[in-house]
């Protein structure tokens, strides 16, 4: 017996592995594998098992290797794990690489049309005669390539006990109940499952088993959630330009708005979506609409946000409300267009030349994408300023488990917009930039107001309290001070951070956005290794007093984020300079979502010092 044989024998004696493993599926992109992958994750979800799926795809339309990683965790840990327990190898180009990634005792399911046999003896492996199975099916010739990927779904049905009725349910959802494609795909899955049962002997330890952990929960992407949120936030104007990974948000708005936002009386639209010629125009239109009194938004990603800079500054300085979604991808420059990051925080916060300071919302789940989807409009209109919602590719594009969306608990806040009657009350002394209430937020009128004193001249040039052109140093100072005051007012409107405490924790982890699953898992491991931690998940900038208190209350603060430079760590150092000594940046971006393992390693090694 070789060493590897021994390892395998040990594995065989090992206990069964139920609902606690990860699968990496390597396929050729553009081959329809996305449908198969979604079908698998949806089926597992409907079996009641906590599951997550991450698409690791190339910036390419057809022909390059693409991976989908699925994590199944009975304990509810849904962050990415570095290496898979199971590999489904369907891509010739990445075949060897994918096989090599398996640890001893891992499970390989592969297309024997790519390689008849694999050399590794320390793993379990099942070859699939993909071509034969597809040929044997009654799929029309022109669709055979497309449905070939359903073969591995069938294999998982037989080998992992993925429930076939759940698979049917998933297909039914995917194809919106259209019988033809559902049947076509289902049949291949079924026949493959039968073939596997007849021809393969199950020797590996991996199993799926029904649970009750996903009851009343939903599986949805952040982009879809954001679009639904915006629809319930009353979005009236959306200007956008296609860019990965933000496109899905606009796509979803185009699905939901016609369903939800036709005027019941007239059947006319209470919204407009315009695909602009570029991001300059996309935000320009949104600024025009926001100035006009509409709930306006745009969505983009890094390169688009760079283009939007000049208008961002204009919106800030003219005090025009709008919502800007940045579904972050990896920069600098075009960077890794199909990979995730949190690299735009500092840029978005200061977007615009001169002294600009912007409001950021940081959703950490699809649920919050929905919530901030509507709430961002309230904040933008209340503060008369652009609000940036920073999602990312992982959150925006991948399917995440979420609670059902809850109806906005508060009335819509349209801010200090005044109409004809309100103007009368000002008795001739209304000024667009007059700070009447002492909160830095002036009153504004919008076009269509027929009061003879309602009009004002919006501009990006220096202005006084009555929106008149001014180069007077006093006017300039006063206006900029008011804008600063408005920023202070903003703190009271920000969603508070989410706190979680552990007994006798001395150190705190401060993180935000899509890294949350990895952070929470890391905390459990750290506790097991004798390092209990408290955690604060930031949901907005400006920071609130809760953030200050959290930092003060801990010996050490680890700021975990998915960028190179520790961008929130830097912003916190500016916010609480007296505490910089205790704040440590735990930051990394390589395109892949952070893993708990990496966070644990980082913090453990620093705690040991």
């Amino acid at each position, binding site marked *: 017996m070789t060493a590897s044989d021994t390892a395998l024998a040990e594995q065989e004696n090992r206990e069964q592995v139920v609902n606690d493993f990860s699968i990496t599926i390597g396929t050729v992109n553009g081959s329809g594998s996305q449908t198969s992958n979604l079908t698998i994750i949806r089926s597992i*979800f409907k079996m009641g098992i906590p599951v997550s799926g991450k698409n690791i795809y190339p910036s390419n339309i057809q022909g390059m290797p693409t991976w989908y990683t699925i994590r199944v965790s009975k304990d509810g840990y849904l962050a990415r794990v570095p290496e898979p327990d199971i590999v489904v190898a369907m891509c010739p180009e990445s075949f060897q690489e994918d096989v090599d990634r398996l640890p001893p005792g891992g499970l390989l399911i592969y297309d024997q049309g790519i390689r008849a046999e694999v050399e590794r003896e320390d793993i379990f492996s099942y070859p699939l005669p993909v071509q034969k199975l597809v040929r044997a099916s009654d799929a029309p010739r022109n669709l055979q390539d497309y449905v070939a990927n359903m073969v591995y779904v069938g294999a998982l049905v037989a080998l992992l006990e993925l429930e076939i009725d759940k698979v049917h349910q998933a297909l039914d959802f995917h194809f919106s109940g259209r019988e033809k494609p559902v049947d076509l795909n289902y049949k291949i899955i079924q026949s493959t499952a039968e073939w596997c049962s007849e021809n393969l002997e199950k020797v590996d330890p991996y199993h799926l088993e029904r649970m009750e952990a996903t009851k009343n929960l*939903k*599986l949805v992407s952040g982009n879809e959630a954001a679009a639904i949120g915006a629809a319930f936030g009353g979005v009236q104007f959306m*200007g956008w330009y296609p860019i990965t990974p933000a496109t899905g948000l606009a796509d979803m708005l185009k699905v939901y708005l016609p369903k939800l*936002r036709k005027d019941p009386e007239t059947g006319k639209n209470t919204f407009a979506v315009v695909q602009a010629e570029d991001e300059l*125009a996309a935000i*320009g239109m949104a600024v025009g609409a926001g*100035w006009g009194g509409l709930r306006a938004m745009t969505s983009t990603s890094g390169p688009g946000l760079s283009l939007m800079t000049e208008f961002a500054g204009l919106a800030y300085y003219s005090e025009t409300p709008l919502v800007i979604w940045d579904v972050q991808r990896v920069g600098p420059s075009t960077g890794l267009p199909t990979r995730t990051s949190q690299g735009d925080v500092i840029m978005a916060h200061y977007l615009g030349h001169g002294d600009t300071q912007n409001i950021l919302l940081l959703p950490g789940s699809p649920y919050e994408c929905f919530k901030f989807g509507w709430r961002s409009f309230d904040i933008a209109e209340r503060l008369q300023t652009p609000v940036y919602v920073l999602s990312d590719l992982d959150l925006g594009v991948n399917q995440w488990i979420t609670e059902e969306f809850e*109806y906005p608990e508060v009335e819509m806040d349209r801010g200090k917009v005044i109409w004809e009657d309100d103007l009368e009350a000002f008795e001739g002394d209304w000024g667009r930039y007059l700070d009447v209430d002492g909160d830095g937020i002036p009153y504004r009128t919008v076009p269509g107001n027929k009061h003879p004193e309602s009009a004002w*001249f919006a501009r990006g040039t220096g202005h006084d309290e009555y929106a008149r052109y001014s180069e007077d140093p006093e006017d300039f100072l006063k206006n900029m001070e008011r804008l600063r005051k408005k920023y202070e007012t903003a703190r009271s409107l920000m969603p508070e951070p989410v706190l979680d405490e552990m007994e006798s924790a001395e150190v705190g982890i401060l993180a935000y956005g899509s890294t949350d699953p990895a952070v929470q898992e890391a905390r459990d491991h750290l506790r097991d290794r004798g390092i209990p931690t408290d955690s604060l998940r930031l949901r907005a900038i400006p920071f609130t007093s809760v953030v200050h208190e959290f930092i003060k209350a801990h010996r050490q603060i680890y700021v975990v984020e998915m960028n190179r430079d520790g961008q929130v760590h830097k912003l916190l150092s500016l916010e609480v300079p007296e505490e910089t000594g205790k704040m440590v940046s735990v930051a990394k971006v390589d395109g892949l979502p952070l893993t708990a393992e990496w966070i644990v390693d980082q913090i453990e090694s620093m705690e040991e010092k």
Partner: protein
Amino acid sequence: MAKRGGNGQNELGLTKDEYRGAPSTLCKGCGHQSIANQVISVVYEMDVLPEKIMKFSGIGCSSKSPAYFLSRSFTFNGLHGRMPSLATGAVFADHTLKAMGFSGDGDTASIGMGQFKHIMRRNVPLLYIVENNGVYGLTKGQFSATADQGLELKKQGLNPYMPVDIVREALASNATFVARAFSGDVKQLREILKAALSHEGIAIIDIISPCVSFNNQDDALHSYSWGRDHEVAIHDLAYVPPREEIEVDYDKEVMKKVTMHDGSKIVLQKIGEEHDISKRVDAVNLLDRADEEGILLTGLFYIDTEQPSLIDIKGITEEPLNRLTNDRIRPSREDLQDVNEMLF
């Protein structure tokens, strides 16, 4: 003229003063000032409430001029070259308002060429005026993209490049109203402005508007004297307001009457050769010949009143979107329940 109220009031009871703006800071004699004055007259004469107008502009001397007229109209003086996008979003706020955009040749034909092209493609209901002086006035006289080849300016030297022609660009981009005027010919300018304000779609007017500080030598294409000596109108254009019968005796042969959506009419009387304003090629041919002859052609080159505007295309409510109450823009609890049920 329509019956006016007494004391210089129009039908709304407003005097011309109520259509003016802040004191101008343009150079004395600047062509842009003359355009500003005509806009004041036209809106006053058309009995449009200033609050029913929105103005937009980019950056430049031309773009800052909206401060000097219609101060009772909402205005957004935005970014260099980006007036079109700003206006595109804003027209959705209240589509019952008339939108007017003011730009320069630098603002439109250089930095803003992209947005200029796309606003025409979408047929945004906007009167888009290019105050064309062949130079960047505000940054002290550099050549703009419309400067003529061979133009020589003291500080800039010789312009070696071929010019961009706003009218040809507009024709090529399917603009639904394309005209050229000369700010030294206020009578025609007024009529064209009125016609353009009645157009429900994008109306481009290229107005040759001399910059007296940087490009007004007698032989320069964008100068007053050259314009005066070389302007040739392609027709005599008269605007007839809605409800008013055409009973005037025209001194020339009437070639065509175009009825606008608001019921007003554009009456074209023959001057020289007949020109069909429903054919883009005719306009282009005419322009080519004008170049050969070295003349400045003005008038309405093309009109199409049939194309739907962006507002029509998007099928929005009759009521201005910015007047919709909260309950009409937030779907119900039941709707959210349905959405939740639809999700997987």
